[in-house]
């Protein structure tokens, strides 16, 4: 991350180089979501580098997602990351963290930061946001009373809950939230995530009174109650009383005489604009605060803009992020010479509160003259859906969805448009009517599909028809639709696929010319049909390519897929019988082919643990066979340069020394990386090495759609980097936290928290099911992170399937894994014991004693590596300074 206060740093030099004399300086005051969007948009549009940007943030961190803060507890800090971190490495962007701006001088066009440093601006953008409003309730300043807006607030809340829990370990921590709006319900979810009791106190008649109507509020209350959160509506808090002994907040007293004992109170009664800078700078202020701006987001002062919650636009401040994003885009457009104006606030909302879907848009309360409502409510299932229509029941004016926000994505873009002929209730009736009617909706081109990024249906269609996008990821990258909150993804998918079909582009999920099915479909088909050979499978499920009568004999795409499916379903050694013909390059030789056609050999070292004798044996093997050695990223040793015919001899030596195949060649479990854990480390709280060894031995040899990596850390310091693994385990005082779907490689992804404080048994069962579910449903070569993005319901969906057993397949998954564990065998040893399998490990069928004569190596840093083309050519020409080539067969081999 950039810190521009270090003079002469490389970053500064780059920055100076990127600036030209006529670069204008934009100063952004505030480091929240809207500021982030502003910087992102300006950098993407300012291709001529006309502007440099200085962002001053009060918080000590880059902007983060303030919507849905409770994910910080449930999924970890990364869940709140916004956009690409590279944005802040841009030489034209400087982020000053922990650097609040104290004053604006309009005359001199400068701002002064908290360190009294003065910064010049050509354009000033105020994006200072809001602060939480705490009503004047007596006792609101007691210890144990919190607000809920920043990560610091969350950390303080968590610290307090932990402190209370330590003080009385046997008593549940009791929490209460004042305010039943969006923020209050989020805070209640956070308390639940911290394992505290939560009661929501709402002054009004129902929850989320701003966004949804009474009926929706009632449904929401029932659903929230089911999540273990208590709700009191129409309740005014009169006073907060201290606990007699501690002096901390201890009791709430209500206007109706009621009382509630509590250890913690979160005040979430709304926000007010952070407008003090604007006020002191003498800008025109709104009646209820905020810097007054015109529809171009300009304040009363030229070259000073205000965006987001601090801007008083059309007479009011708006506490939602989408209109703030729109304002950011407008200012960027103006800076780029455009004439964009604010189109009015889209106050549509869709969110998940403690796992409950809530959405509303337009005239949710039905306030328009003569409007009519269509309501579907199911109190048993906790579903409430309402459409607000014009008096002729044709034009859609608004909607409320609680418990099932399915129709929201398709209906919201139809706001203000005429619905097709027919009964409008069809759009909100449960499955059957629901899906059919929605499927038939044809969005007008100007319908706003993605409100976060202001993308219309027409723009999405154009991405396909004009910009040549051929899939959903392409359309997302081209338009930015569905890249922020993702609520509109179903609509983006539907529009994209419809356009592709119209353009005659087949949206094919077929594996290859031989199979119409996807890998997941084929996996199920093979399992259900109980097939065990490729010939049976292609005969039963293969398709004949155009012009042919039989499906043929497969290819390098489908054969390894079938090989993996057969291996996952327990069909014996991967080189047994016909299976051997299916194996990909590396599996075929149980070693990793390198660029010159030789192999690298990796013995398993479970958990990265190896005895001195083991290390010596590996060293001796490498030396005797002339192998180049290197330590891998997975805490083991890789030996390079083994020729096909050497492999069995090398394995024999390794197997005799107690090693087995490390499966470095397979789309299967590679390693379980571990830190040294509580057995040696001063900080470790659990035996991470022991757990890593157990996991590696349990899942060794397990074939999957792609390679699998795991990690186990012995404490929260996370030295094993478990959160970058497909399966990451981190020790806690109480057990193990399980993270899943982290990936390194080309598309890195942080793992997400699946379950907490598991016992050893719970941990193994949960990992068993996670892996088996992935193995059954993953696409070809799909790693766990993209799988998690696509699998139904994402992380929550996976939790439902493998913990709540929503599909009723857990017993089946468990049995499949038990089968795998029981039938594991070392693939190397099995080959050594079988002359038939050994046959393939020969150099030449007619000269088995000869080695590949074309191998050539040069010495480097005490070992040898393959010669480059230039080195080979030089040696062949006999040049004087030509490197000395060591040819493969002439390498000294001791046995």
């Amino acid at each position, binding site marked *: 991350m950039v810190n521009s206060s270090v003079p002469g740093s490389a970053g500064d030099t780059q920055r100076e180089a990127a600036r030209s004399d006529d670069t204008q300086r934009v100063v952004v005051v505030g480091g929240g979501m809207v500021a982030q969007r502003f910087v992102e948009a300006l950098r993407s549009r300012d291709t001529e580098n006309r502007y440099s940007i200085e962002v001053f943030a009060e918080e000590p961190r880059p902007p983060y997602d303030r919507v849905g803060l409770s994910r910080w507890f449930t999924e970890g800090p990364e869940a709140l990351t916004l956009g690409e971190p590279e944005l802040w490495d841009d030489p034209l962007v400087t982020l000053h963290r922990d650097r609040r701006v104290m004053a604006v001088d309009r005359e001199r066009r400068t701002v002064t930061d908290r360190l009294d440093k003065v910064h010049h601006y050509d354009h000033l953008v105020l994006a200072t946001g809001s602060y939480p409003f705490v009503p004047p309730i007596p006792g609101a300043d007691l210890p144990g009373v919190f607000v809920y807006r920043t990560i610091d607030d969350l950390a303080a809340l968590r610290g307090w809950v932990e402190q209370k829990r330590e003080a009385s370990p046997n008593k549940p921590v009791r929490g209460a939230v004042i305010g039943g709006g969006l923020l209050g319900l989020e805070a209640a979810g956070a308390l639940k995530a911290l394992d505290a009791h939560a009661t929501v106190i709402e002054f009004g008649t129902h929850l989320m009174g701003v966004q949804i109507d009474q009926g929706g509020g009632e449904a929401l209350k029932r659903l929230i109650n089911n999540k273990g959160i208590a709700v009191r509506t129409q309740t005014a808090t009169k006073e907060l009383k201290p606990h007699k002994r501690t002096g901390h907040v201890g009791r709430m007293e209500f206007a109706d005489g009621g009382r509630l004992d509590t250890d913690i109170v979160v005040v979430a009664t709304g926000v007010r604009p952070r407008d003090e800078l604007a006020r002191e700078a003498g800008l025109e202020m709104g009646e209820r605060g905020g810097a007054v701006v015109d529809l171009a987001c300009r304040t009363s002062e030229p070259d000073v803009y205000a965006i987001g919650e601090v801007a008083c636009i059309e007479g009011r401040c708006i506490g939602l992020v989408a209109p703030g994003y729109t304002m950011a885009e407008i200012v960027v457009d103006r800076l780029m010479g455009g004439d964009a104006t604010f189109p009015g606030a889209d106050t549509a909302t869709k969110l998940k509160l403690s796992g409950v879907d809530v959405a509303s848009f337009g005239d949710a309360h039905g306030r328009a003259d003569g409007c009519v409502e269509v309501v579907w409510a199911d109190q048993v299932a906790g579903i409430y859906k309402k459409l607000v229509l014009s008096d002729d029941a044709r034009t859609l004016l608004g909607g409320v969805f609680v418990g099932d926000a399915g129709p929201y994505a398709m209906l919201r873009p139809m706001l203000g448009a005429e619905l097709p002929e027919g009964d409008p209730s069809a759009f909100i009736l449960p499955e059957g009517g629901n899906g059919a009617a929605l499927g038939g909706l044809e969005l007008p081109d100007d319908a706003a599909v993605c409100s976060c990024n202001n993308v219309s249906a027409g723009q999405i269609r154009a991405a396909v028809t004009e910009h040549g996008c051929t899939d959903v990821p392409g359309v997302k990258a081209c338009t930015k639709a569905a890249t922020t909150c993702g609520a509109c993804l179903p609509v983006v998918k539907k529009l994209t696929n419809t356009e592709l079909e119209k353009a005659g582009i087949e949206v094919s999920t077929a594996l290859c010319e031989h199979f119409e099915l996807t890998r997941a479909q084929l996996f199920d088909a093979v399992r259900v049909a109980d097939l065990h050979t490729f010939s049976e499978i292609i005969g039963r499920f293969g398709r004949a390519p155009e012009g042919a009568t039989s499906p*043929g004999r497969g*290819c390098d795409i489908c054969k390894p897929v079938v090989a993996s499916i057969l291996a996952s379903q327990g069909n014996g050694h991967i080189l047994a019988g016909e299976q051997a013909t*299916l194996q990909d390059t590396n599996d075929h030789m149980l070693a990793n082919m390198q660029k010159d056609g030789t192999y690298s050999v990796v013995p398993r070292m479970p958990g990265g643990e190896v005895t001195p004798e083991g290390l010596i044996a590996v060293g001796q093997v490498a030396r005797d066979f002339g192998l180049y050695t290197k330590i891998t990223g997975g805490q083991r040793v890789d030996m390079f340069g083994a020729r096909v015919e050497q492999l069995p001899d090398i394995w024999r030596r390794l197997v005799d020394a107690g090693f087995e195949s490390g499966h470095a060649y397979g789309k299967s479990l590679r390693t379980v990386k571990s830190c040294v854990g509580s057995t040696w480390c001063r900080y470790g709280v659990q035996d991470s090495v022991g757990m890593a060894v157990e996991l590696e031995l349990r899942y060794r040899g397990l074939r999957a759609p792609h390679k699998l990596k795991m990690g186990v850390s012995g404490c929260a310091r996370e030295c094993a980097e478990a959160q970058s693994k497909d399966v990451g385990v981190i020790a806690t005082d109480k057990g193990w936290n399980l993270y899943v779907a982290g990936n390194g490689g080309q598309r890195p992804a942080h793992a997400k928290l699946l379950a907490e404080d598991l016992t050893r048994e719970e941990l193994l069962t949960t990992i068993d099911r996670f892996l088996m579910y992935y193995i059954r449903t993953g696409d070809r070569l799909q790693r766990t992170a993209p799988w998690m993005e696509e699998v139904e319901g994402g992380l929550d969906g996976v939790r439902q399937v493998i913990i709540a057993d929503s599909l009723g397949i857990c017993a089946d998954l468990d049995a499949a894994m038990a089968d795998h564990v029981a039938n594991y065998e070392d693939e190397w040893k099995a080959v050594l014991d079988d002359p038939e399998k050994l046959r393939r490990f020969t150099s030449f069928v007619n000269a088995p004693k000869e080695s590949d004569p074309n191998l050539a190596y040069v010495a480097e840093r005490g070992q040898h590596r393959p010669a480059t083309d230039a080195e080979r050519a030089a040696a062949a020409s006999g040049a004087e300074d030509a490197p000395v080539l060591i040819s493969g067969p002439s390498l000294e081999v001791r046995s």
Partner: protein
Amino acid sequence: MTVSEHSESRTVSGGTATLAAASGGGKGVNVIDDLVWHTVCPVDDLMPERGVAALVDGVQVAVFLLAEPFEGARVHAVQNLDPFSGAHVLSRGIVGTRGGVPTVASPIYKQVFSLVTGECLALADKEPKTGLAADLTAYPVDVRDGVVHVGTPA
């Protein structure tokens, strides 16, 4: 394994010779018309749908046994040198079909080649190494009395 249906003489693709009688030449070598025939191995040494490497007159050749005959022949041979990596590895590629034509995929960068003509059918976004052609040399093959013979130009 039975290969009786291929043990009789046949006209080979890529050459005009017919292996009528084994006579003359040195051990394992027959000269017929403009081709030199080399004995490679018993056909029983081959595994269906996999290849083996053979040294034919100092040149590496990849020999494949198909699961079912294509245009009458079950055994096919191409150069073992992979033109896209420069490594001698094609005998270790996956055998399959593209539009019914038998193929092998390079185990290194996954280009697909016809086992019949040697033609490169899929470049996989790569160019062959300098000085090498994308298409492979396909060698005439004959199986006689259970023995695989590969022909090279005389």
